[in-house]
């Protein structure tokens, strides 16, 4: 069930084109620049079918707002989860603070300044903070709202643990992210995100492949979906649970704390925000959430990919709007003690 969001729903259909317009050129340019770093890592091909010495199960940890409410790390530890843990770079701080070293971290967004913040930005200035309040507003990891302290903490955490972390790094990643990953000694596995169907004439994806010979992966619009794809499409896990994959906001989240607040105001005006945001009722939780066109797009394409996946997908987020056919919406505990993990 969904309501309002009349304009937001119309925008969902344009998200694929808008995304490609915004990140396509930057991603490919980053791939060109990153060519000089490829030999500092390995090809993702080295992880193909690699169980990482873990069971047939994987848990994806993304950084949605439910992550802290569900106590994912505590449950993984207390139920002695023996599968692979695949985390978004945005969930790295959460994992490390909870004493969990993910088996694989994934990063792909080409943004020049924002993504490196999840790694600790050695060059972060007060001026940067004045120019971009994304992290101080955002609803994912509240610790990042105290930005300088969080940055210092992240620098320290990765300086200490980086050498023990395996990262699947997309060639689209920014110079800052690549340098930071290498500087802290991460074990880098390179791959190309798909930009288009490689079998089409003049395909950007195929052209990248011919230049760097790195595997190309359909990243599904966002890093959380890419983690899920890594878990089954690369590591070959048969049972993949996702956590922190809300693709939405809790009903009591102020609009100001959403990722596209300023854009929403520019498009519809403060008085019409109800038309931009889409309200969705989650029948598994008997609870309302609201979402924006980008998250709604993520949800739709995830459902499309899940229908075609060679794994069983469990959504253990215990929140949010990712439910539908081919998704087992269960509590994390049920997954961890269930048949799949035995």
């Amino acid at each position, binding site marked *: 069930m969904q309501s309002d969001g009349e304009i937001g729903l119309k925008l969902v259909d*344009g998200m694929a084109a808008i*995304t490609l317009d915004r990140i396509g050129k930057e991603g490919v340019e980053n791939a060109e620049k990153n060519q000089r770093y490829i030999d500092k890592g390995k090809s993702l091909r080295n992880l193909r079918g690699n169980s990482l010495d873990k069971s047939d199960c994987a848990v994806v940890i993304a950084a949605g707002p439910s992550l802290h409410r569900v106590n994912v790390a505590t449950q993984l530890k207390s139920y002695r989860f023996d599968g692979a843990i695949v985390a978004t770079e945005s969930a790295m701080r959460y994992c490390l603070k909870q004493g969990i070293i993910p088996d694989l971290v994934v990063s792909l967004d080409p943004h020049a300044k924002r993504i490196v913040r999840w790694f600790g930005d050695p060059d972060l200035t007060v001026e940067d903070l004045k120019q971009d309040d994304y992290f101080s507003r955002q609803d994912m990891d509240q610790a990042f709202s105290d930005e300088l302290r969080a940055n210092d903490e992240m620098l320290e955490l990765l300086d200490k643990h980086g050498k023990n972390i395996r990262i699947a790094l997309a060639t689209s990643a920014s110079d800052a992210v690549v340098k930071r990953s290498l500087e802290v000694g991460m074990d880098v596995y390179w791959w190309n995100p798909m930009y288009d169907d490689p079998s089409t004439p003049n395909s950007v994806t195929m052209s990248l492949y011919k230049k760097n010979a790195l595997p190309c*992966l359909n990243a599904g619009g*966002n890093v959380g979906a890419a983690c899920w794809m890594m878990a089954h499409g690369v590591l070959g896990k048969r049972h993949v649970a996702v956590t922190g994959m809300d693709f939405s906001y809790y009903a009591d989240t102020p609009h100001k704390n959403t990722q596209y607040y300023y854009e929403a105001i520019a498009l519809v005006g403060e008085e019409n925000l109800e038309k931009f945001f889409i309200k969705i009722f989650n029948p598994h939780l008997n609870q309302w959430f609201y979402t924006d*066109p980008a998250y709604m797009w993520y949800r739709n394409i995830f459902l499309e990919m899940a229908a075609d996946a060679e794994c069983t997908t469990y959504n253990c987020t215990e929140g949010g709007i990712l439910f539908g056919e081919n998704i087992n919406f269960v509590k994390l505990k049920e997954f961890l003690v269930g048949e799949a993990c035995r």
Partner: protein
Amino acid sequence: MANVLKGNYTLNNPVVIEQDKDVTPEQLFEKEALKRLGGSIAFVAKQKVMWDTPEEKENK
């Protein structure tokens, strides 16, 4: 604006500003906002992982 900002010089090459008369400043503002929406990376329907090109596969 031209009534307020005036220079005491003459340009050798006069600047001609081409404006689309059909586009209002509000529409331009919306267009810019739209450009900033979107996801982190592309999505390609019906694709998973491409390990090799079809030709490479054939040669294996």
